[in-house]
């Protein structure tokens, strides 16, 4: 391409660059540089305060992959995602369908369901921590039971997952509502005339036409759930006996990189998580072609 640009094209190109540059700078400084730095650190025995890193090849990787706690925490993370994503999506979808109707008070309910989203996650976790408290918590005292919601290793992961679902429903719901409003009303009118019930309309019109939105939510929430950290960190004391069965990969990363000061090991842990998320994403992209209906 040796064709010279016209003045107008040149002008357009300059403006294009002017608009792109801030975003690009942000991406390079805040995303790309840290990514490559993390890769580099995962290959090093890191020194204190980022000084004196010694290249050790794959030593960190062999240590991380051989540690049972790595696999346990990866499994914990998957279990969390298995609760948060399906329940977060299904409940939000049902709520969205109801709140999309022209009924009095919908905006009040929309606000109520969205409220958890605007609360600081740390504050949310603190409140739940006390709700779940075995001796003095509201839950146990309300139902007169003695369940160790967050210290029984068998159910602690579910309790954490419930907080995750509760926090995310509002956000998913808003996305679903916007998706619902893009579905042309004609389809429902036609279905009405043909005598389809509300339930059938939901399964044969709403769900297929909403699939791009659903896919987007599932994909982003899956990645979000796999990188969960704050819930475990805030809700569970570090001497909680269930911690090992609940701590996520990012929690483990925090423990090694920040508490123990072993950045190299921590970096390796997040690289393992990154690879795992990449695999999941590839599978999701393949599934998209089959399951998602774009009109």
């Amino acid at each position, binding site marked *: 391409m040796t064709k010279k640009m016209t003045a107008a094209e040149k002008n357009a190109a300059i403006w294009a660059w002017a608009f792109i540059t801030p975003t690009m700078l942000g991406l390079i400084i805040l995303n790309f540089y840290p990514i490559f730095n993390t890769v580099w650190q995962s290959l090093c025995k890191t020194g204190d*305060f980022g000084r004196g890193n010694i290249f050790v090849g794959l030593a960190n990787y062999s240590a991380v992959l051989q540690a049972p706690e790595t696999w346990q925490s990866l499994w914990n993370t998957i279990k969390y995602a298995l609760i948060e994503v399906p329940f977060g999506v299904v409940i939000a979808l049902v709520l969205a369908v109801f709140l999309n109707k022209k009924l009095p008070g919908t905006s009040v309910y929309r606000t109520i369901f969205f409220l958890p989203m605007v609360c600081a996650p740390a504050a949310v976790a603190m409140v739940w921590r006390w709700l779940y408290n075995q001796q003095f918590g509201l839950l146990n005292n309300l139902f007169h039971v003695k369940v160790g919601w967050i210290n029984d290793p068998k159910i602690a992961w579910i309790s954490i997952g419930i907080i995750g679902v509760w926090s995310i429903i509002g956000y998913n719901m808003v996305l679903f509502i916007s998706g619902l409003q893009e579905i042309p009303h004609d389809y429902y009118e036609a279905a009405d005339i043909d005598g389809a019930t509300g339930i059938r309309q939901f399964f044969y019109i709403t769900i297929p036409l909403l699939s791009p939105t659903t896919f987007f939510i599932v994909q982003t929430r899956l990645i979000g759930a796999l990188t969960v950290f704050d819930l475990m960190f805030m809700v569970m004391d570090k*001497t909680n006996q269930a911690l090992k069965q609940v701590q996520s990969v990012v929690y483990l990363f925090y423990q090694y990189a920040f508490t123990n000061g072993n950045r190299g090991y921590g970096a390796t842990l997040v690289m393992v998580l990154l690879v795992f998320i990449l695999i999941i994403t590839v599978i999701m992209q393949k599934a998209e072609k089959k399951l998602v209906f774009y009109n």
Partner: protein
Amino acid sequence: MKIRKFLALVMALMLAASLAACGGGGAPAPAPATNDGEEAAETSDASSGGGSSGASLQVAIWDNNQLAGLKEIADEWSAQSGVPVVINVITWDSYWTLLSSGAQGGTMPDVFWMHSNTAQMYMENDLLLNLDNYIANDADIDMANYYPGIVELYNSNGTQYAIPKDHDTIALLYNQAIFDKYGVDTPTDDWSWDNVYEAAKAITEAGAADGVYGYAMNTSNNQDGWYNFIYDYGAQLITDDHKGTTIGSDEGKAGMEMVRKILTVAAPQPVVAETGTDSLFQSNLCAMITQGSWMINSFYTAEGHDDYKWALLPYGDANGNGECDPGERQSCYNGLGWAAAANTQYPDEAYSLISYFCNEAGQVKQAELGVTMAGMPGISDAFNNAFPGMDVSAFNRIEDEGTLYFRPYTRNTTVWEDKIQQDAFLAAWLNPADESVMAGACDAAQAIIDTAIAAE
């Protein structure tokens, strides 16, 4: 549609504000602006007219209980020097994240606290201001006057990087009302851990219906809890050369066996893990805990503080003769240090403030105000009177009636400190009825510490 426009504007402003908060790079002030939303900042107003030199100091600490007193001392210094001081309180965890990020990025606070967990790392990497010349030229500071364990802690290869700020000790805290209610005799200075066990047993049994426990201790109550048992019975968690441990020895196991015995009549581990020993005590659901002098204020200001009494830390009757022999009453002591950043813009002012905090007058004042006991022995008597209505002399008396040992540390303390709490002793806390579990936990702790030290 006006509302919608207004909302959009508000959202845009919030977005801009959050972006600005994230990217606040080039600003010279290293103030921790957006960490957890849990900080408090206090600006000294003594010289709001602005110092002639234009200097100002950023100070970072992690204990909100000490803010008011330290601010008062800092204000005095500001009035003399004309340099304003801003004290930022950051929670313990965030404090170290902030400090290490600041160390890496070159934006540390000017003056801040150092702690035994991390001091070595900061000193070896030349991140702290070398105070040797300043101390040599300062008539007010003589390192020989301070607790030797604290001086040694903040000294690396013959160079002093921080000056002792304070020292803390441990005492037994009990709730008079609970003892009265169940008709149990209250702790005295002659109590051994066996007496604690008997009292805890009586209260836990009598209070079962009310959900009241006689005692509470978690695996994370180390410095203020089970560490002291190990030393009472003649073992050391970390040996004097900081290169080993004797927790797996017979003495170590004897100390932890005493802990185990008390745990059988104390609040179960899941309860203390979820609710916390301090909360249990302050909810009047626990009769006794051990606590450090740095926590006095939080109990002094608590709702039921009229019933809270401090007793001398009990001793471990290792030889079983029924009296406290030398070495059987051991309290951990620790001391923070005031340090300055190596790259501070105002090293002279920073040292001057440190000297003002740490010289004898500043230390006495600190004790008077009830901030903490002093970093030098023998001048903390004023601390006894700093809490009208509450007798806190137990923290000072242990110096005469017991032995102080310095808080166990190695180069990378946090690596084994968390691990022995979570991996070694948690099982024993969960199952205190079984003696062999606790003995096994001691062996596990021995292995964890040995491995961690070998990797340092």
